[in-house]
């Protein structure tokens, strides 16, 4: 009952006319960000965070804006998968398998509409799942003491690479780097200066927003230059939409199954959206069997992965909102947004900031309806965007990123830091060190250190307190499994995903 009250209150905030406008702007911007080459969802949300705050938007408005951007970016990624056979991001890979053949048959508009409907069903069901599951998990989190908090933060890093992660040691290196950066500044509990070298600007620590924008946006610019990508991805033509109610009913069971599978893999630590869309697609292919024509433009082959990856993206919000530990790059950036609103990450997030969290959930629901309404009529515009050449787009994106950073404190020093983080991000990506753990380290570092010190103060310096309760031992066990499993399961799963794509390419050449 309490849940319902909170949710209704969330809606009453999200449905205010002014906030609906922000949701529409966010959904539009998000789809743009998802559709444009070189701007992933994490990157896009990161660029907009400083702008939202320097515009002086209220916490509720900036939260609604950025949540809609997040939801919109998930939608945008599929456009280039279907029309150009270029997956916008990793989870969109499975969508190319049936989406592109369908577009080749002259049914691009139907393929896009089906993916929009399946995405909507996926997000909607996952948001409902989130509403049911979140309070239960949050109540469970009340049993956590500082030792369990610490183990939970460790778990977040251990599972970040996902079961398909390549080199776990590099994830650990990246996490350690991020945590180290978070220790720069004046130590809150003793007032000691740490790693500040008497530079006044470092007393408050390194701003994670600057780090995120530098690591993502500037390093992306460098990759575009390195690969000499200057022309647009080519234009695609769109036919007139001819979608009947029976077509929607045809994909409905598939979308429902895909949503459930996607949601589960989103909630589980370490599974993520790529795995969600892969499992949904493979299972659907098994269920339908020879009655379908998967790989040759079966609409159900679009609906399954799209429902799966959108459900997974929203499912990933469950651990983020209830336990305060994000499981992916984009949810990490959303956590960055909440921290900027003075919310502390960690298991108390849901209890202490109920209003804000339910606001996010309501905003997600509103954003998704908005997206469905915007997407079907406006898809023609998004298609045109695909052909903007990066040689003009990337400089302007870089400019917007720089203006956002500059507007935080009007200091050139912040921009130097942004460029420095850009270089760091480029080098790390070249060495295949993941960037998300660096960012998560900066976000969770202060809370992680506080819980460690709290636990050790209670035990008077005895480190065994970290493993003294059944709960903490359980969390550590999952964390260790999360680090070790990719060595066993990773190669198998990666090979299967590669195979699915390779088979499809062979079939294409044979035509």
């Amino acid at each position, binding site marked *: 009952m309490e849940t319902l009250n909170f949710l209704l209150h969330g809606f009453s905030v999200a449905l205010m006319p002014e906030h609906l406008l922000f949701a529409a702007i966010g959904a539009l911007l998000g789809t743009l960000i998802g559709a444009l080459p070189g701007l992933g969802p994490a990157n896009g949300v990161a660029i907009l965070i400083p702008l939202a705050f320097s515009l002086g938007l209220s916490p509720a408005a900036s939260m609604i804006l950025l949540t809609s951007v997040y939801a919109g970016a998930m939608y945008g990624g599929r456009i280039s998968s279907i029309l150009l056979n270029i997956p916008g991001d990793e989870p969109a890979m499975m969508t190319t398998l049936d989406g592109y053949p369908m577009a080749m048959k002259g049914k691009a508009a139907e393929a896009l509409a089906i993916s929009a409907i399946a995405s909507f069903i996926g997000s909607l069901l996952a948001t409902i799942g989130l509403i049911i599951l979140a309070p239960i998990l949050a109540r469970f989190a009340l049993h956590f003491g500082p030792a369990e908090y610490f183990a939970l933060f460790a778990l977040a890093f251990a599972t970040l690479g996902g079961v398909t992660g390549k080199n776990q040691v590099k994830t650990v290196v990246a996490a350690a780097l991020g945590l180290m950066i978070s220790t720069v500044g004046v130590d809150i509990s003793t007032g000691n200066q740490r790693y500040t070298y008497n530079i006044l600007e470092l007393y408050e620590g390194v701003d994670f927003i600057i780090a995120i924008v530098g690591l993502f946006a500037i390093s992306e610019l460098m990759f575009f230059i390195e690969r000499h990508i200057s022309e647009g991805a080519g234009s695609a033509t769109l036919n007139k939409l001819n979608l009947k109610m029976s077509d929607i009913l045809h994909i409905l069971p598939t979308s429902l199954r895909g949503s459930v599978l996607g949601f589960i893999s989103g909630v589980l630590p370490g599974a993520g959206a790529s795995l969600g869309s892969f499992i949904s697609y493979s299972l659907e292919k098994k269920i339908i069997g020879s009655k379908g024509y998967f790989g040759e433009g079966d609409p159900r082959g679009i609906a399954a992965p799209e429902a799966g990856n959108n459900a997974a993206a929203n499912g990933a919000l469950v651990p983020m909102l209830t336990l305060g530990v994000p499981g992916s790059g984009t949810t990490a950036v959303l956590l960055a947004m909440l921290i900027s609103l003075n919310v502390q990450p960690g298991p108390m997030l849901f209890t202490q900031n109920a209003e804000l969290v339910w606001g996010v959930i309501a905003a997600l629901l509103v954003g998704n309806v908005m997206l469905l309404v915007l997407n079907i009529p406006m898809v023609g515009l998004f298609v045109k965007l695909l052909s903007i050449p990066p040689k003009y787009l990337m400089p302007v994106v870089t400019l917007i990123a720089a203006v956002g950073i500059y507007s935080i404190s009007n200091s050139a020093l912040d921009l130097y830091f942004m*460029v420095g983080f850009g270089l760091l991000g480029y080098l790390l990506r070249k060495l295949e060190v993941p960037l998300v753990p660096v960012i998560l380290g900066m976000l969770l570092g202060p809370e992680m250190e506080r819980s460690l010190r709290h636990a050790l103060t209670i035990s008077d*310096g005895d480190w065994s307190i970290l493993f003294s309760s059944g709960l903490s031992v359980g969390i550590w066990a999952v964390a260790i499994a999360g680090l070790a499993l990719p060595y066993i399961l990773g190669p198998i799963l990666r090979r299967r995903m590669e195979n699915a794509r390779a088979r499809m390419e062979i079939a294409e050449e044979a035509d």
Partner: protein
Amino acid sequence: MIGDRILGILMLLLAVAYGWEASQFPEPFGGVEAVGPETFPLLLAVILGFSSIYLIVKPDPDQEWPGTKTLLDLAFVLVLLLIFAALLAPLGFVISTTLMVTVLCWRMGAKPIPAGLTGLGSAVSIYLLFNFLLELHLPAGILKLT
């Protein structure tokens, strides 16, 4: 191979320097306790140290690195962004942004005239949008009308 080894060595050096510095933190006001400002950094130094040794012993195969010309291009872009940051306040937003975006478009393969138009167009429109519509003041610099 060599890339990961270099990374491993650099990270090992960082871990040692970072850990050593943590051990030198002055005693906090109110005396030494079981845990202090150095506990967490020391833990991190140990973790980073061990993982970097692993990287040195078992490196992954290298990715392909760009040639000298591309590396110079990349360095040029970073320097360009630093110059932009330095000139932003003294020269003003419109001039420095026009220069930065124009040069960047040109380096990415655009012809000079469309590059210049993109630069000027984005500079003026963002300046107007920020200063008048969003009321966020960007530096006017030498173009200030007084």
